[in-house]
């Protein structure tokens, strides 16, 4: 028997077993974030209503990304629904790896999706991933500490305001750090934040011919500012702090300010988890004095269907359920409006019940302030605010992120970190054939 024949035989055997195991069962890959875990616990309602059984693969963000990317790039077909972000969606859709969601029923009301989210999750006019929740970034600060310091946070602060407030609130003896921001390496961790700072300082990743621009004076100014903030007013071990670590610190009352995802607002104001729930204020992400761009990012965790799944119809049905208006109401009914997955639908922000949630208005305002098609002061050949929507970005962002993380740990100066980042970005772009 030739190798080809035996491969076919084995494939056939494999198919039989695969089909046998997956009839009417959806395998859903998702992140272990609170909102998704809530979705999992509510999903029995979906199964009851439709008879479609669900297999959950819930993984930590980095592992999830690695798994779904590997699977989609090789057409592994292990998942029927994948949780992906705004970065992956247009790239994968362009490769025909995702099923278009045009087939969602009318009462899904696709036009209700926030325009920024819809734009970021579409490719050539079709939606390819339905936002489960969306976010921008904003400043979360301690109203009590600001008051004690005799300061007032403007609704739209500048970086100078932030530095001033951070200096005033820092109280090392009482274990209070003026500001907590991301330092942990990763394209979705520190580089998301640093890139928004750079944007607001007028820097950009690439010029229009895809030449890396990290050697520009704007980058140096931005990175130096970021580094100084953390060195002077940041928590110990900031180089290892990502979203979760900072969330924990803020909830424990150890941060005066935290600039991060808008979804965090519901966690820091939840009295069950947060010791400072009653003293949190919100402001827009900062800009540099005299410049228009704010350090807002835009992100959505969205549900997509990989092309080639045997369960397209059932997968569509699930997405219709999980990202619907009804789902938002279901969560509101069970857990209160503050815990509804935010940032996906216009109707949510028009709902008077939701308007009473303290962070609703600022979240919407922040999302609307972000423009992924026009992220920087100078023109760029890419879309994406806190990321560059090219396949190489994940690699570039993470390697560069490690240099900046080493800088925060005090092992490199901003100049050195930028120099190294510039070199390795140039290198990777060359390897990818730019």
């Amino acid at each position, binding site marked *: 028997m030739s190798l080809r024949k035996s491969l076919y035989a084995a*494939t056939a055997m494999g198919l039989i077993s695969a089909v046998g195991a997956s009839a009417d069962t959806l395998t859903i890959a998702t992140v272990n974030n609170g909102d998704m875990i809530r979705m999992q616990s509510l999903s029995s309602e979906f199964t009851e209503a439709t008879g479609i059984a669900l297999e959950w693969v819930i993984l930590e963000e980095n592992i999830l990304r690695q798994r779904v990317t590997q699977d989609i790039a090789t057409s592994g077909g292990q998942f029927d629904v994948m949780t992906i972000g705004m970065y992956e969606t247009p790239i994968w859709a362009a490769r025909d790896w995702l099923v278009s969601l045009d087939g969602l029923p009318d009462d899904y009301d696709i036009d209700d999706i926030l325009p920024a989210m819809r734009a970021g999750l579409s490719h050539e006019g079709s939606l390819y991933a339905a936002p489960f929740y969306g976010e921008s970034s904003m400043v979360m600060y301690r109203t009590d500490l600001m008051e004690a310091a005799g300061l007032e946070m403007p609704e739209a602060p500048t970086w100078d305001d932030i530095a001033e407030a951070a200096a005033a609130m820092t109280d090392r003896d009482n274990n209070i750090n003026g500001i907590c921001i991301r330092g942990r390496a990763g394209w979705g961790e520190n580089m998301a934040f640093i890139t928004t700072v750079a944007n607001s300082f007028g820097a950009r990743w690439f010029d229009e011919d895809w030449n890396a621009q990290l050697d520009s004076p704007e980058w140096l100014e931005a990175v130096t500012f970021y580094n100084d903030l953390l060195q002077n007013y940041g928590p110990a071990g900031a180089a290892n702090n990502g979203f*979760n670590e900072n969330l924990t610190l803020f909830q424990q009352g150890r941060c005066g300010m935290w600039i991060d995802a808008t979804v965090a607002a519901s966690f820091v104001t939840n009295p069950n988890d947060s010791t400072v729930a009653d003293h949190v204020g919100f402001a827009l992400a900062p800009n540099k004095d005299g410049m228009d761009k704010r350090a807002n990012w835009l992100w959505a965790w969205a549900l997509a269907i990989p092309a080639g799944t045997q369960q397209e119809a059932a997968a569509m049905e699930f997405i219709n359920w999980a990202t619907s208006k009804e789902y938002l109401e279901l969560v509101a009914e069970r857990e209160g409006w503050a815990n509804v997955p935010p940032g996906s639908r216009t109707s949510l922000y028009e709902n008077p019940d939701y308007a009473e949630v303290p962070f609703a208005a600022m979240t919407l305002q922040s999302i609307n302030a972000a423009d992924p098609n026009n992220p920087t002061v100078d023109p760029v050949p890419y879309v994406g605010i806190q990321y560059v929507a090219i396949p190489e970005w994940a690699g570039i962002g993470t390697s560069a992120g490690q240099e900046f993380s080493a800088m925060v740990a005090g092992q490199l100066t901003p100049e050195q970190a930028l120099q190294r980042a510039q070199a390795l970005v140039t290198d990777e772009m060359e390897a990818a054939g730019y």
Partner: protein
Amino acid sequence: MARSVTTQRKTLNTVIAWGIGLLIFFPILWTILTSFKTEAQAIADPPVWFFFDWTLENYRVVQERSNYSRFLWNSVIIAGGSTLLGMMVAIPAAWSMAFVPSTQTKNILLWMLSTKMLPAVGVLYPIYLIFIQLGLLDSRIGLTLVLMLINLPIMVWMLYTYFKEIPGEILEAARMDGAGLRQEILYVLTPMAIPGIASTMLLNIILAWNEAFWTLNLTAARAAPLTAFIASYSSPEGLFYAKLSAASTMAIAPILIIGWFSQKQLVRGLTFGAVK
């Protein structure tokens, strides 16, 4: 023991050894203790040791979120299956190398061991593509095979060193009694080799149980073992030390218990030919 020691000396030994033993064991003990605390107690400074309100809440949460028994069952099948399968291949191989050595034996043995040095990441893509072709992704069979293959060199090596210690004269005596090859293996060698076989199996179960690269990359839901279970607790939002501890305890408890109960067997055979 022939050497006589004073009670003082013995006491001193005991104190030092217990101190070091507890120090080494401490991270595990602390994890188990933390799994019974609330999240706030888990990070309390000064730390709380034994006197807190013991709660099973974390275990309840973890169980509610993940179907622990399925992960556990997959781990059992994969670790056990790969071990049994591996033994079926390794025992004859080790036997033949130990009792019918040729000039190539040593080279073959060392070559086998060198396959163990293949960096898994380097061959992930090829393996993944092959698995897709064969429809083995997310299947227990596929994972069992892979784990069998990666641990096979260690198994052969361990068994070989064991078999080699069995004196050849016994075999010759058996042969003179007219024993065939089959009987020779079945009635003469096997009983003598049981400690070696037992400890090889135990070591292999431990290695397969703890393997975290292939088990994570080749599974999704159906075949996912405990290494995948723990990957969903590594950094959730907010405080999570207590939940992480509960999940960790659940992931390591079965193998810890098996290991402890069978440590005599494990230790007895765990020489890799280190003892002559």
